[in-house]
């Protein structure tokens, strides 16, 4: 899943390891999320959103949002 975690992290001048420390996950997990290779669980996504004071959908790109709207 595409996301702007890397941008948000850069805005705070945090390394991946520092962000990992804030979220209590490994640096590999941050790297995997940033590169879109791993989608975080809902609890972790909420934790990320709270940390950056943003809504989840502002951080993570819901690529299926358009398709869902079309179905409606």
């Amino acid at each position, binding site marked *: 899943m595409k996301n702007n975690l890397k941008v948000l992290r850069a805005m705070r001048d945090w390394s991946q390891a*520092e962000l990992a420390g804030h979220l*209590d*996950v*490994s640096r*590999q997990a941050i790297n*995997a*999320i940033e*590169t879109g290779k*791993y989608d975080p669980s809902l609890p972790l996504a909420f934790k990320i959103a709270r940390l950056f004071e943003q809504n989840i959908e502002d951080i993570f790109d819901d690529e299926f949002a358009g398709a869902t709207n079309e179905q409606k």
Partner: protein
Amino acid sequence: MNKNKTLSKRQRFNRNLMIAMIVISVAFGIALNMLGPQETDISFRGLSNQAISPLTAIVLAIGWGVFLPIGAYIWYQKSIDEQEAAAYRTGAFFAANAYIGVVPLWWILWRGGLLPEPNGIIIFIIFNSIWLIIWLWKKYSG
């Protein structure tokens, strides 16, 4: 910020648990050496089928059957994060499917006289190797 401070609480626990498991493993190794001085180098190889003393067997069984599961449970529940847990489960999935595929295949080919008799230790090594490779690949490549 020093390296220790950049490690999350979970990562520090993970590191400490790994150190504890290594210390316990070394202690087991030393204990086994002290308990089994009569064992020859050949008979004491962990994965051989050579006879070992009952006491050595009991110590190994306690290590493998008690300490390892407890350590693995704590490690999985408390130590790793969700990304590594997912990588671990993916490794287990591939290993289990390889097991399901390899064991009957080998057995059938053995019955047909095309392969030697299935060997549990080789199957065990294949299963664990696939699990470990996939787990580490998924963890470090995403």
